[in-house]
């Protein structure tokens, strides 16, 4: 069906879209511009539009040899380690979540177990609770058992963020796979484990790639867990905050750090988008 629109309606609708885009793009563009400016230029009012861009801020972030020496003072900055930390923690969280979450999702989708819906809702409930709910009791426990400021401890506690998502997403993806297909495989002589390996997992792949991407981003952007439960193994979000020194605020360096932090998810989304295709199960039944 085609709906006819007048030119003026079109104009107004496009205007709304434009406004939304502007609102979203503004801080992003501001940060990118800021990261290319000198410290002095950042603080001027009204803001300068024309300036000579510099990569100095990015050098400060990564130039370990000169360890934070800037043209306008020295800051202690080591940005490589937090990036590595974030990669290890986020990636590790995704892998562990997949390992435990997908089987859990399968059971919740396919098997009749007592209190199934309650268990599922309890798991989902963690998505509603503030993360600090688990952080505060864990803080002293982690210190006592030596998990404070370790990758293992961090990946473990990040499951609060990532595991519920994987369980729920994989459950709904598995429910989308017609049960007939699994039963057909059983009739064809496949034992339950082989049904999962040969039939369920291949059909789940596109969904799981998408879900993994999503929870990687959730883990990557998490702040509160790292702030409280780590110091040397702190993720990149925490490291950004540390650039806010009590004396001088190195805004352009922070901006550069933000740009770097954003780039990794952006790259992942661009690569992963191709895999987000749905509807692979089309054609299986009817």
């Amino acid at each position: 069906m085609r709906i006819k629109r007048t030119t003026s309606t079109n104009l107004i609708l496009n205007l709304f879209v434009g406004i939304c885009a502007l609102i979203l793009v503004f801080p992003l563009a501001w940060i990118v511009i800021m990261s290319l400016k000198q410290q002095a230029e950042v603080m001027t009012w009204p803001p300068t539009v024309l300036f000579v861009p510099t990569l100095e801020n990015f050098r400060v972030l990564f130039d370990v040899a000169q360890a934070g020496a800037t043209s306008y003072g020295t800051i202690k900055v080591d940005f490589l380690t937090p990036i590595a930390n974030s990669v290890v923690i986020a990636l590790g969280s995704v892998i562990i979540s997949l390992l435990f979450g997908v089987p859990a999702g399968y059971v919740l989708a396919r098997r009749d177990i007592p209190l199934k819906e309650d268990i599922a809702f309890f798991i989902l409930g963690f998505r509603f609770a503030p993360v600090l709910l688990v952080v505060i009791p864990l803080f002293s426990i982690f210190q006592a058992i030596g998990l404070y400021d370790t990758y293992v401890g961090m990946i473990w506690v990040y499951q609060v963020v990532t595991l519920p998502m994987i369980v729920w997403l994989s459950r709904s993806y598995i429910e989308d796979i017609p049960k007939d297909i699994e039963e057909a495989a059983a009739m064809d002589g496949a034992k339950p484990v082989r049904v999962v390996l040969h039939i369920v997992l291949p059909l789940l792949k596109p969904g799981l790639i998408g879900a993994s991407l999503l929870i990687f981003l959730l883990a990557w952007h998490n702040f509160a867990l790292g702030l409280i439960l780590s110091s040397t193994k702190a993720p990149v979000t925490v490291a950004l905050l540390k650039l806010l020194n009590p004396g001088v605020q190195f805004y352009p360096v922070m901006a550069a750090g933000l740009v770097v932090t954003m780039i990794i998810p952006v790259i992942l989304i661009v690569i992963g988008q191709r895999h987000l295709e749905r509807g692979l199960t089309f054609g299986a039944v009817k």
Partner: protein
Amino acid sequence: MAHVRLEDVNKAYGTIPILRNIDLAIDHGEFVVFVGPSGSGKSTLLRMIGGLERISGGRLLIDNKVVNDVDAADRNLGMVFQSYALYPHMTVRENLAFPLRMAKVARARIDIRVAEIASLLQIAHLLDRKPRQLSGGQRQRVAIGRAIMREPKVFLFDEPLSNLDTDLRVQMRVQIAKLHKQLGNTMIYVTHDQVEAMTMADKIVVLKDGNIEQVGSPHDLYHNPASRFVAGFIGSPKMNFLNGHIEAAHDAGVDVKLDAGARVSVPVHSDELLVGKPITLGIRPDDFSRSAAEKTDIGIELDVDFVEHLGSVTYIYGRAGRESVVAKAPKPEPPKGAGKVRLAASPADCHLFMTNGRALRRLHAPANWS
């Protein structure tokens, strides 16, 4: 050789009974059709034989071995699903090969078998396609092919044709019947379509509300229905049911007087106790003739509502008293439209059903025994 035997098999979901006390023996090479309305438990029964549903009580034997607790994967049966249930991520070739891969058959032998089955079902040109690139009929053939790859002892079909259009359904029906002749395996086929049941089966099992109503050959079920339900379910258009009561019972049968007025003496096993009881007389639309050939024939006067011309046959829809009746119009000159028409039927073609739905057993084999 593959016999399937069900002994007092029960199925319940929680406290809700689905199937009750099912006793059934299926011989090697037989084509058995489970037929019944939806909710009759026919699919559940098939899935229990396949191992996809747990058996709540009783024993299921395949080749004289109790298989109640044997996994579906180990029963060596082939199944075709209503939805086809092809593996969407695999090509037709991989779909066909899957059962043999699971059985760890050597690659070379799998390839030979795939080629063999593909040519049998005329799907050789589709081997490298994915299921989503196939039409309904092609998917159906692939699903059948996959089911027969392992040369299973028994084939199970769960309403395999209900997703196809009418033309294709008739074609596939013939193909499956041919396949049965070629392979000679035991086949169990579930359908709600009595035409499929009548045309394909060696033996029909009619199910209703989780009970077996009747087991028999298509001919048996058509001519000697054990209950009013079976009589109404088998045959199209449906058997006519006319209410009346029994006036007398004797060795040659019972005398019935219909509410519409007519009297007839029907040759069935009878009982003095039945005299005076209400009874339902059943006559198939095909069993009417224009005028009474014998004086024992039952005569019915019909108020014609409308006439349906189907080409080879014409059906008259009308009323006898307050009850509606469908009759095949006797040749040569079918009535043109509304009016009155007198029809007759031989007592030997009449069925009698008691108020509990059971049929009174007929004294003679039907006259038109084929």
